[in-house]
């Protein structure tokens, strides 16, 4: 029977299936971070040890200071302990840690691919919903909860009571100038809704994903979660292999050849059937921004905020009314008229070298008129950006240049947006209070974030001359 890539990986990782259909899956590689303390505690309480240290990798990201990577720079003892506990657990259990002060430290979803920990065809898990990011390399990547983290630590397996359904989102055509992976995924979510992928694993297919860089694919897969999906994935191809080759934890030598041969067999069969199919035309996608408090509340930057009176049903109308009240916006207002107080470039969605290059291309020779900061996704991204002089471009344009971490994506380290403040952010969630209590988030691409910083309002980056 014809099978999808998702079917293949699922089958290859199935340890056993109970008569009632619950499946026990083997975990190829497991990522942990400074929010994983509870999982290790539960392990200790049972008197157990880590089953597979060689398949476990960790880095602190959520709680680290972005001003300095000295542990003492984390002002609050409880948060500091989250970070130090990870190092203690790594030492005690013997897994690989990219700790503070290690240039390889970074946001867990940035370092996985960067270190070659993420591989095509494996089941990958992490106690963080944006684990979907790793699907960009053709892995099946699930975000899991704290109890599941302890389960994986103890057994290297994961229970799934029901196999998710398969969904394919195909975008064919060619993307217009100034349109990025972030705009593509925001357009997809605006189309299918924040619950549109619920219960499904999404495979992204079509010419634009084939042409897309690995970084772009990661941005798209990352926000599969915002479409409600369990995971997102892109079939591995020459772009994937070229990206992975030579990375520290990717196979080397003869093992590399064997692995690539196996990875070439992964893509879905041509006649594979998906439970749900969605098509978008690349030509219709333009730079996007969100205006509300759900990622589905996205509109072209050239458009206007919708009128709740025109909503398809009462529930949606109420949701729009509530969102606009929180956001302090009016129906019908032009997106480009939305004034911005602050700009954040970072997060596992958009903090890779390509994102920083795109942002710097717009920032070069311009000046931010609002507070703005750039938080690279890892120490290696930071070092690469500095080697290319991007840090100088940002600093000259009035942006802060910080140390790697999750930072203002979620504000757990204290990098918060003030109540009522409006932030153009390259992160993935615009939920009520996500970036701080009362904070108003507008999700955009890195280039659009710089455009917002330069204009002090949302602005169409395509209208800015001399980019580069």
């Amino acid at each position, binding site marked *: 029977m014809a099978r999808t890539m998702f079917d293949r990986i699922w089958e290859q990782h199935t340890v056993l299936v109970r008569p009632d259909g619950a499946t026990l899956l083997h975990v190829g590689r497991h990522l942990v971070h400074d929010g994983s303390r509870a999982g290790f505690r539960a392990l200790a309480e049972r008197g157990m040890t880590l089953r597979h240290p060689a398949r476990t990798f960790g880095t602190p990201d959520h709680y680290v200071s972005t001003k300095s990577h000295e542990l003492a720079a984390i002002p609050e003892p409880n948060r500091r*302990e989250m970070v130090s506990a990870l190092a203690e657990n790594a030492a005690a259990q013997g897994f690989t840690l990219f700790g503070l002060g290690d240039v390889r430290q970074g946001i867990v979803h940035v370092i996985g691919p960067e270190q070659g920990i993420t591989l095509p065809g494996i089941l990958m898990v992490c106690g963080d919903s944006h684990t979907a990011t790793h699907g960009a390399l053709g892995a099946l990547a699930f975000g899991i*909860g704290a*109890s599941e983290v302890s389960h994986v630590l103890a057994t290297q397996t994961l229970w799934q009571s029901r196999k998710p359904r398969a969904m394919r989102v195909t975008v064919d055509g060619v993307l217009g100038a100034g349109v990025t992976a972030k705009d593509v995924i925001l357009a997809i979510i605006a189309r299918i809704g924040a619950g549109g992928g619920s219960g499904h694993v999404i495979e992204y297919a079509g010419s634009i994903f084939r042409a897309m860089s690995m970084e772009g694919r990661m941005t798209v897969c990352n926000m599969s979660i915002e479409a409600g999906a369990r995971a997102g994935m892109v079939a591995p191809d020459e772009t994937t292999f070229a990206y992975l080759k030579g990375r520290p934890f990717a196979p080397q030598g003869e093992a590399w050849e064997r692995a690539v041969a196996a990875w070439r067999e992964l893509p879905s069969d041509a006649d594979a059937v998906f439970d749900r199919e969605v098509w978008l035309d690349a030509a219709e996608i333009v730079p996007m921004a969100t205006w509300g408090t759900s990622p589905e509340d996205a509109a072209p930057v050239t458009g206007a905020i919708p009128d709740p009176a025109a909503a398809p049903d009462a529930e949606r109308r109420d949701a729009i009314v509530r969102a606009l009240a929180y956001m302090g916006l009016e129906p019908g207002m032009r997106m480009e008229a939305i004034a911005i107080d602050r700009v954040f470039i970072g997060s596992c969605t958009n903090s890779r070298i390509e994102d920083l290059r795109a942002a710097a291309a717009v920032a070069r020779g311009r000046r931010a008129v609002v507070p703005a900061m750039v938080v690279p996704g890892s120490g290696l991204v930071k070092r690469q950006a500095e080697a290319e002089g991007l840090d100088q471009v940002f600093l000259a344009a009035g942006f802060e240049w910080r140390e790697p971490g999750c930072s203002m994506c979620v504000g757990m380290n204290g990098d918060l947006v003030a109540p009522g403040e409006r932030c153009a952010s390259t992160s993935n969630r615009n939920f009520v209070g996500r970036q701080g209590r009362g904070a108003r988030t507008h999700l955009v691409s890195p280039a659009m974030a710089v455009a917002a910083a330069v204009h002090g309002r949302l602005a169409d980056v395509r209208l800015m001359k001399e980019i580069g």
Partner: protein
Amino acid sequence: MRKFETVEAVAAPMDMANADTDQIIPARFLWRARAEGYGGLLFNDVRSAADGSQKADFVLNRVENAKAEILVADRNFGCGSSREHAVWALSDAGFKVVIAPSFGDIFFNNSFKNGFLPIVLPEARCAEIRAALARNPGARMVVDLEAQEVRGPLGVNDGFGIDAFEIDPFRKELLLAGMDDISFTLSQQGAIGDFEARYEDAMPWV
């Protein structure tokens, strides 16, 4: 984990679609130790004003819901971030069951691991129950896991019903036995060991 027994308790209606985990428990509280309890922080930013004062009109602040153990919610409950703290907050606040038309996948999975039961009922029925509870504050409902049945609101003419619900049999078994996943998996060591040997053979590069 405690065995899940039949719940008969006050049910609180919450008319809020897409109640995401950031609302259920804001991220800035996540570093707290599990032992401190998250119950007091449940829906913190929804139930209280910025100065910390409680909003009297928020459903969980109402006196009749002080002892509620069942929450009847709207679609896509628990969407968003994977934080298990969302389940802990509900559970620490005394809730044992959430009934909704649909759930965020990760929240749904996390619930079972904490002896907490998420029940899916049709959207229209959820709305009907919420309306009946709103008209009859403090009304009780029964959740019978063994029989896979929700009954109530009790003592209500308009809106009472007996609703069957679906649940994965494995999860039902674990909930009723109060057994957690790790204990069960550890009983399958043989199969796991065999699988690992085959896996390492097929994919030595992982």
